[in-house]
């Protein structure tokens, strides 16, 4: 049976050696596949990065209270009375003085100029109570200091500093009719909060005409993960129409809306993949036509039609795998570790980093192989059917 493999191998080698004769067409096929794979990987890397940013954001030691049905912080709203009432609920951790540990917060949208494209984009600005600093995991003031209550001072997340212009320590920034001074920079170890600006809640309420309303309450749980006592308290009071979730659950739900990115990426790449497939088919049919006399000559010599089939399939696979690798490398060069921001479910910027993991690489190569296999199958079948008498026909 050694002849079986050596003839297939010989035909594969001959096909590959004949590629320079169809250089441009082959390069075009490689390019088409590489674009498809690069696009797929860009989307998957984006989704992955997003997922990891949001996953890093939540903890079950903290709970978030929003108005029922609001789905995001931005749509939520509650009065100061509601906040004061719910703060008396059992299940909320208390400090040494016996006061509940919570931060009533509100959320406004301001504009910034992105460094990357000099375009305006939204930045969430959060009014928090000084206690709110203690209600974020891994929070660190890396430069400057906290804002002082009652003053137009902001501390900026590191993500904002990276992505937007003009938020360096000591800078004055104008939002609407008021000026704010950057007095500090904070880090939360890469989580979504880093894409925010923080200021004193009452000051934000007055400067942005929010009266005494808040949007969310963030609190520390007495028992990590246990929101049940608070939920019961809320359910027993008909005035309170609120959702209570751990922070981990809250962000996981937000992130779920964004798995759509990955699905969209797959749909887009499959549609583009069909284009690349058409290109691969065309390239391979051309290859078979160009090699028909060589194929027939080999068949006359005694080579099997399986070798003609496998040779063509191998050529197709080689082209598409080369394209897949080129696309993956391009995606890696351009996107891995690339910091970006996008509109989250709350219609605000979440800064995140594209993550190209080995699994995503594998997905890209699988897509390329699929294009190569399908694009090579029918032409390979035709190669196997080339009539041997073709060897006796025609001139050069």
């Amino acid at each position, binding site marked *: 049976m050694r002849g079986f493999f050596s*003839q297939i191998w010989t035909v594969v080698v*001959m096909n590959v050696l004949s590629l320079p004769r169809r250089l441009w067409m082959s390069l075009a096929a490689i390019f088409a596949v590489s674009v498809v794979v690069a696009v797929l990987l860009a989307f998957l890397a984006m989704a992955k990065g997003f997922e990891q940013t949001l996953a890093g954001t939540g903890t079950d030691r903290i709970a978030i209270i929003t108005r029922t049905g609001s789905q995001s912080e931005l749509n939520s709203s509650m009065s100061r009375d509601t906040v004061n009432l719910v703060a008396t609920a059992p299940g909320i951790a208390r400090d040494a003085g016996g006061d509940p540990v919570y931060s009533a917060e509100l959320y406004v949208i301001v504009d910034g100029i992105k460094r990357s494209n000099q375009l305006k984009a939204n930045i969430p600005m959060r009014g928090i109570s000084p206690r709110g600093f203690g209600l974020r995991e891994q929070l660190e003031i890396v430069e400057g200091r906290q804002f002082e209550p009652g003053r137009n001072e902001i501390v900026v997340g590191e993500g904002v500093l990276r992505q937007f212009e003009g938020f360096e320590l000591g800078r004055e920034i104008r939002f609407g009719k008021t000026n704010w001074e950057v007095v500090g920079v904070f880090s939360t170890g890469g989580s979504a909060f880093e894409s925010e600006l923080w200021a004193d809640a009452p000051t934000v309420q007055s400067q942005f005409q929010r009266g005494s309303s808040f949007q969310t309450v963030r609190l520390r749980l007495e028992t990590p993960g246990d929101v049940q006592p608070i939920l019961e308290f809320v359910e027993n009071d008909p005035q309170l129409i609120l959702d209570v979730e751990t922070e981990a659950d809250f962000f996981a739900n937000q992130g779920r809306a964004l798995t759509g990115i990955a699905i969209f990426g797959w749909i887009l790449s499959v549609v583009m993949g069909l284009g690349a497939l058409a290109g691969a088919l065309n390239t391979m049919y051309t290859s078979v036509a160009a090699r028909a006399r060589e194929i027939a000559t080999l068949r006359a010599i*005694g080579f099997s039609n399986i070798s003609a089939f496998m040779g063509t399939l191998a050529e197709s696979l080689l082209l598409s795998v080369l394209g897949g690798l080129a696309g993956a490398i391009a995606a890696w060069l351009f996107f891995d570790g690339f910091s970006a921001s996008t509109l989250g479910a709350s219609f605000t910027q979440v800064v995140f980093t594209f993550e190209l993991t080995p699994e995503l690489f594998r997905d890209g190569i699988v897509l390329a192989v699929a294009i190569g296999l399908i694009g090579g199958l029918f032409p390979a079948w035709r190669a196997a059917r080339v009539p041997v008498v073709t060897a*006796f026909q025609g001139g050069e």
Partner: protein
Amino acid sequence: MSDDILFDLRGISKKFVKGNDTITVFENLDMSIARGDFLAIMGPSGSGKTTLLNMLGGVDQPTSGEVVFDGKRVDTLSENQLAAWRANNVGFIFQFYNLMPMLNAERNVELPLLLTRLGRGQRKKNVAAALELVSLSDRAKHMPKELSGGQQQRVAIARALVSDPKLLLCDEPTGDLDRQTADEILEMLTLLNRDYGKTIIMVTHDPEAAKYAKRTVHLDKGEFVAKELAA
């Protein structure tokens, strides 16, 4: 059946169906070819020379009738059995050489040996011997495009005989060559027939080429005609 008959064609018909038309190339053709023969097939264009050669070489099959080679029927073999049969018994020489342009001379000559059980070392020896026979040892590493037409045809002859088949089938082997080069090629075929016992069947338009053969048959409209008698 006599032992020195290599090929026996019995009642061969060959029809091509093209849409509603049926082209009948052969109708009930009989033919015998002796072992060790050097046969030239001549005839006008369209008379069926290539079609006949293809059926002898097992690359095309008769519509009806029997092709018996060495006492065994080959017209009933499957496509892959035929491929194996060709690999063992037939060497082809084409008008346009049909060398693989991406392989050098010795790789081209080696191709038929890849279908055998020979190891690399033995293959190399056989390739060298075949190239020696066609006086191209010094061109072993040359690519086809670096060789003249006559040299390419000699490489093709080396390829046809490297696996030591009994039968060489040539379709216009000198059709693309000038007189002097053609004579060299034909002398080489004569040598292979005389000294190596190859049975050679050669289709040609060229009466000069036919003179090298032991025997010439004339085809016209799918039938053998006795040219000598008619003339």
